[in-house]
């Protein structure tokens, strides 16, 4: 059974090829069958393989399948080899499981679109690349998937290509992540140069042998990998692309920009955790990047008006939690939160998609209102997702987030813990702001078209169940990721109580300001200069776009504008000009006057005679 592992990505890949060559000739239903079915088969196979993997004791707790050797030059021989272990199995489950339901939902969401089959071809390509990323046995293969998901993300963000704004968002996403990817590539160079291999297992074995803890080279390598991770996972300072990426169809946001691709950075760091353990500084950076992003994104989410952008900043902030967990050395908790986050954030995005379609592509939450009664099913699943997001006890989000906070506290990372706690408050605040504004209050007289159909409701229902119960899934991570040693469980319950209280306080504040007394919130926001400036700063996501525009984009465009005609060309053009000048000067002597020639001849002769004589 395990040797069928390669089929897991072959199904989506085949789906991509079929749909790509169909080029619009396929009707919606067959296209949906191919697009969704390929992921379904993959998900089934994942289940079977997962069962087999967990029930058979394997040497090393991992199964490796060699496809072929990519290239072999001078000892550099990266292989196309798949490695299945506890971590990749979890990722496999998330990608194929959540991915399948999102595909199913998408088959409803995208109905009526001109490029139905093109959409599913890109989605299948994405799933295949993501599977490469998590199954890759060496960093180069991982990089292959890494860039592949970047490409699919680009294609899907710009899916509705006729609007140049979507194209710009897609470009931004690709280029910003490419910056991170390039850091990562340099990291790969260092690792290969120092350790002589890119095979992940070998690297993880060699690195502690050759590098001392805290050595510079380990820090540099780890920081460069972190560069790749922050690019993909939209963390500070490469976070600016994620909100714009919401230009893509909503299922895309759910699959790529919430559940799977953006968590690739977390996966990468967890995968190479040995390296980060060698460099306390880099690990600290991971934690602080997470903590700062978590808070900044929380503030920004508070001021957004677009339902998808609120969720995008929320995603950024939740990934911040995962980075925080990684920084605290709680590898397992980070991956756990990755999984539960995939459940509830996919649910939130899909139900947001349901809202958006119900309102005929209205995304502004201030134009919604009172939707609770009009689309009750969507409201309830959205509420379940939100409750999981704010870590209400009994939901999956509670299980994972409290694990993170507890491990951060117990591991002695108190500052990270406080940041996480503040983040929990922010999360509750912005989430329930969204709910109170969009689902409660006065209806704005929107014509509401109630979504229905099994392909709409089933994914939402299933994901809602997972969002609640997902925390009970045991993860087979012990063999891959070390568990931090915690002396005692004392105070865990007290901590849980505190964090629940903090979240509840957030909900209460949201209720007060955005439901009970919204005018007061308006007054506070517009009240004086400071709050006005703060609001503007937050709603522009702390001005990072502005800053990057000034530092990178404008100078680039300035250079292009100044040098549009290639200054080297003017040197080259100077050569013929110089020759023409020379010619003009020489032509002066050819004036056509015979007597002048005679005189100059005589003068020349006299000059020569004089030179000879003297």
């Amino acid at each position, binding site marked *: 059974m395990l040797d069928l592992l390669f089929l897991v990505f072959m199904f989506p890949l085949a789906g991509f090829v079929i749909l790509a060559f169909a080029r619009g000739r396929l009707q919606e239903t067959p296209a949906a069958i191919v697009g969704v079915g390929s992921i379904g088969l993959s998900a089934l196979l994942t289940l079977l393989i997962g069962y087999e993997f967990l029930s058979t004791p394997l040497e090393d707790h991992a199964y490796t399948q060699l496809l072929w050797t990519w290239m072999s030059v001078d000892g550099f021989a990266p292989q196309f080899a798949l490695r299945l272990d506890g971590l990749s199995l979890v990722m496999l489950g998330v990608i194929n499981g959540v991915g399948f339901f999102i595909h199913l939902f998408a088959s409803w969401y995208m109905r009526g679109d001109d490029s139905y089959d093109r959409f599913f071809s890109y989605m299948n390509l994405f799933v295949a690349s993501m599977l490469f990323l998590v199954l890759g046995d060496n960093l180069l293969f991982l990089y292959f998937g890494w860039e592949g998901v970047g490409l699919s993300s680009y294609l899907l963000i710009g899916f509705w290509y006729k609007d140049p704004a979507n194209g710009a968002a897609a470009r931004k996403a690709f280029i910003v992540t490419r910056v991170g990817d390039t850091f990562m590539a340099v990291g790969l160079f260092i690792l290969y140069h120092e350790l002589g291999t890119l095979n992940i297992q070998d690297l993880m074995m060699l690195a502690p042998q050759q590098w001392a803890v805290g050595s510079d080279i380990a820090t540099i390598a780890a920081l460069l990998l972190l560069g790749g991770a922050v690019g993909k996972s939209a963390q500070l300072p490469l976070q600016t692309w994620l909100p714009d990426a919401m230009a893509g169809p909503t299922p895309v946001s759910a699959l790529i920009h919430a559940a799977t691709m953006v968590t690739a950075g977390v996966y990468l760091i967890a995968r190479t955790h040995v390296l980060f353990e060698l460099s306390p500084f880099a690990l600290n950076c991971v934690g602080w990047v997470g903590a700062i992003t978590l808070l900044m994104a929380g503030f920004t989410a508070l001021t957004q008006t677009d339902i998808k952008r609120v969720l995008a900043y929320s995603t950024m902030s939740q990934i911040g939690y995962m980075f925080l967990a990684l920084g605290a050395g709680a590898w397992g908790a980070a991956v756990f939160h990755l999984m539960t986050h995939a459940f509830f954030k996919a649910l939130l995005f899909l139900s947001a998609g349901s809202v958006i379609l119900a309102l005929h592509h209205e995304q502004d939450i201030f134009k919604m209102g009172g939707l609770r009664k009009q689309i009750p099913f969507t409201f309830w699943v959205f509420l379940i997702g939100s409750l999981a997001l704010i870590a209400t006890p009994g939901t999956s989000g509670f299980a994972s987030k409290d694990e993170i906070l507890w491990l951060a506290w117990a591991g002695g990372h108190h500052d990270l813990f406080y940041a996480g706690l503040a983040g929990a408050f922010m999360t509750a605040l912005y989430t329930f702001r969204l709910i109170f504004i969009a689902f409660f209050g006065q209806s704005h007289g929107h014509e509401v078209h109630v979504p229905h159909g099994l392909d709409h409701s089933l994914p939402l229902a299933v994901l809602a169940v997972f969002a609640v119960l997902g925390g009970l899934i045991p993860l087979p991570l012990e063999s891959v990721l070390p568990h931090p040693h915690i002396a005692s469980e004392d105070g865990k319950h007290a901590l849980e109580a505190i964090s629940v209280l903090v979240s509840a306080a957030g909900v209460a504040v949201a209720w007060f300001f955005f439901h009970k007394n919204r005018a007061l919130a308006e007054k506070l926001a517009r009240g004086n200069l400071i709050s006005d400036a703060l609001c503007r700063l937050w709603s522009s996501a702390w001005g990072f776009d502005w800053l990057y525009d000034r530092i990178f984009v404008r100078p680039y465009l300035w250079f292009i504008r100044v040098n549009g005609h290639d200054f080297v060309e003017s040197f080259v053009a100077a050569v013929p000009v110089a020759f023409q000048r020379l010619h003009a000067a*020489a*032509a*002066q*002597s*050819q*004036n*056509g*006057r*015979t*007597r002048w020639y*005679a*005189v100059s001849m*005589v003068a020349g002769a006299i000059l020569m005679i004089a030179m000879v004589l003297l």
Partner: protein
Amino acid sequence: MIGVPLDHAMILCGILFSLGLLGLMLRRTLIFMLMSLEIMLNSTAVAFVAAGSRWLQPDGQIMFVLILTLAAAEVTVGLALVLQIHQRFKTLDVEVLSQMKG
């Protein structure tokens, strides 16, 4: 051997050459310029003859014949060109005839 001293012959040559040169530089008509050229050629030819008789060598006279031939050929071509130019431009003034300006 009694004859004209070489110095005198050379002075004559120099005077003739200078006259030719001045004519070439000062005259504006093509015909006169050609004639000046002939004078210059002949002055050198005289110099050759004088020198040949001074050193009792036949080379000077050989050179004279050579120059004579050359002058004849030159005049032939030159006069033909002058005729053509006169026909086409109705003038022989070199100041006007400056079509060869580069």
